[in-house]
């Protein structure tokens, strides 16, 4: 039996009286592209933060690449690439310098780093603007740099937190192609999103989260068939009686 790339058991995270994650169980296989769906505040980012070693779980366990998030955080950081939901870039560095910095933090050797930075900048269409300061980038350009900063060291496991939020449709499609390419290379990807069409287009399986609980788990096709729904949005409505994005 193949050991899961990510294993989560009875995971609970409380912030004082608020339960952000309330007992989640989840196994994600190596090479799987897994989508965490749910409305804002459902607990998606909290789960990613626990897996990335940024938050300590209140109870339960989680392993990433076979390493315990409590005991082996440093080993996990060597395996993962994290693209945060809010763009986190150095404004006074150029796009290229931002990406190179994160490659250096992962100890990528000089030659490999140069090649990797060039390839990634080409892929997200930022080659021409690579030597401009990020402070002068548009919102969409910043999000693309934000994404490739997580990929420059060619990690085995990727946590992409709303990677296409606030992107124009064209850029979003380009990032989707890029994510598919990552899957094609055998990378394990957890993607959080509240775009249903994104999850349907990309993910092997999705987990639907609401109020910190995993309320549905399966391949998009399976879930739609199970609930007799035409899309994942309808699946969510059938389970919770609400839309994922209120007002959408």
């Amino acid at each position, binding site marked *: 039996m193949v050991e899961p790339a990510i294993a989560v058991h009875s995971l609970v995270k409380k912030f004082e009286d608020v339960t952000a994650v309330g007992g989640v169980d989840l196994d994600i296989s190596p090479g799987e592209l897994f989508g965490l769906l749910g409305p804002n505040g459902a607990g998606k980012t909290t789960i990613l933060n626990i897996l990335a070693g940024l938050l300590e779980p209140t109870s339960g366990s989680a392993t990433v690449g076979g390493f315990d998030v409590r005991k082996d955080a440093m080993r996990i950081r060597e395996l993962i690439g994290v693209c945060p939901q809010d763009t986190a*870039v150095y404004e006074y560095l150029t796009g290229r310098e931002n990406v190179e910095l994160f490659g*250096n933090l*992962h*100890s990528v050797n000089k030659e490999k780093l140069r090649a990797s930075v060039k390839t990634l900048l080409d892929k997200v269409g930022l080659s021409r603007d690579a030597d401009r*300061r990020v402070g002068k980038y548009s919102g969409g350009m910043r999000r693309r740099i934000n994404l490739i900063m997580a990929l420059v060291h060619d990690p085995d496991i990727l946590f992409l937190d709303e990677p296409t939020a606030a992107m124009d449709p064209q850029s979003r499609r380009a990032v989707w192609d890029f994510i598919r390419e990552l899957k094609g290379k055998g990378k394990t990807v957890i993607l959080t999103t509240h775009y249903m069409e994104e999850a349907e287009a990309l993910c092997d399986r999705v987990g639907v989260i609401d109020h910190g609980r995993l309320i549905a788990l399966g391949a998009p096709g399976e879930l739609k068939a199970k609930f007799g729904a035409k899309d994942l949005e309808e699946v969510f409505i059938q389970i919770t009686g609400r839309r994922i994005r209120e007002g959408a």
Partner: protein
Amino acid sequence: MKLQRVSALSSKSLKTIIRQPAALFMTILFPLVMTLVFGASFGGIGGAQETTFKMGVVNLDLGGNHSHWSADFIGNMSQTGILDVRAYPDNATGQHDLSEGSIQGLILIPDNFGESCDSFWKDPANPSVWVNATVELYVDSASMLAVQAVPPVVQDVLANAVYSRQISVPRPVQLGIPSLVEARKFTTYDYFVPGLFAFAAIFLIMIVAQSFTLDRQNGLLRRLATTPVTSSEVIGAEAVTYMVVAVVQVGVVFAMAFLMGFRPVGSLAGIFMAFILVLVFALCSVGFGLISASLAKDPGTATGIAFIFIMPLMFLGTFVGFAMSAAMKAIEWLVPSWYVTDALTDLFLRGAKITSLSVLTDLAIVCLWSVAILGVGVLLFGRYGKR
């Protein structure tokens, strides 16, 4: 600790300082401008100005047989080069100008001044035959320098005028002068310069505090925490960055001070020691910056907290505290910047060797302070600074 990571982070911070106008101003341009302005105001550019005091003289001993005494006295005052003497017809006019600040002192020579001098020289050993006279001296109480400098100068001139003839009295103890020592005249600026070095490095506290809080606010510290980089590498890189900045600051301040006429007494080794002292002190500034960043939630608050540290370091330990009260001088040893300034004063103004006990003691104390403050900063930042 991996060199590649430290070097990458340090390079990032240096680029940020160079490209961020506010940081560049505070780290490099501010010390440069300060040194320039102080040099232009108090230095030797265009010839060092020696301090002179405008002295009014009301001579009531005119026209008699003894009037040459008062003329000698006034002439000797002018020859000092320190007193710029101008005559007044009466006390009231002189007092008016003194109260207006037009002169710093007023001397009232009584009409029996010369007679008194002659009576002394007729029988120097018999006070009962002397005619007593009193020279009144009024000094501008609003001028601290005049209050301190004028009375002893006038006293000295008066003594020379009255007792100029040698009285040969045998003495058991003689004053020997084995060699002539050339005393260099320092300008006010020369006294300021040692304090300018620490002054520049103190403001690193604010830059470090702002930099960490801004990175935290922008989610960059959280992002760094998802990479294999360790806290010690992040803080080590900051320390390296600000040590580089401190080296540049010392170079800039020294070069500008030199251009403005500052000439240190000591050797090249003294300048080397200045670099060492400020490098070590820069670590202290990084520590204070980390403490400020740990206590503050945003860059604005961090700046405010940084000033809680900057103010005492600046007032007690640099040229700013040049004319501090006795009470403040009693506690100046409590701040690390004072030891930097003290050591640099020894090196640059007193010509002390870098191996002198005083300089080495100052260096040791700055080292201890820096290790302690950086340690506290790292602990606090590790516990509270990343939230």
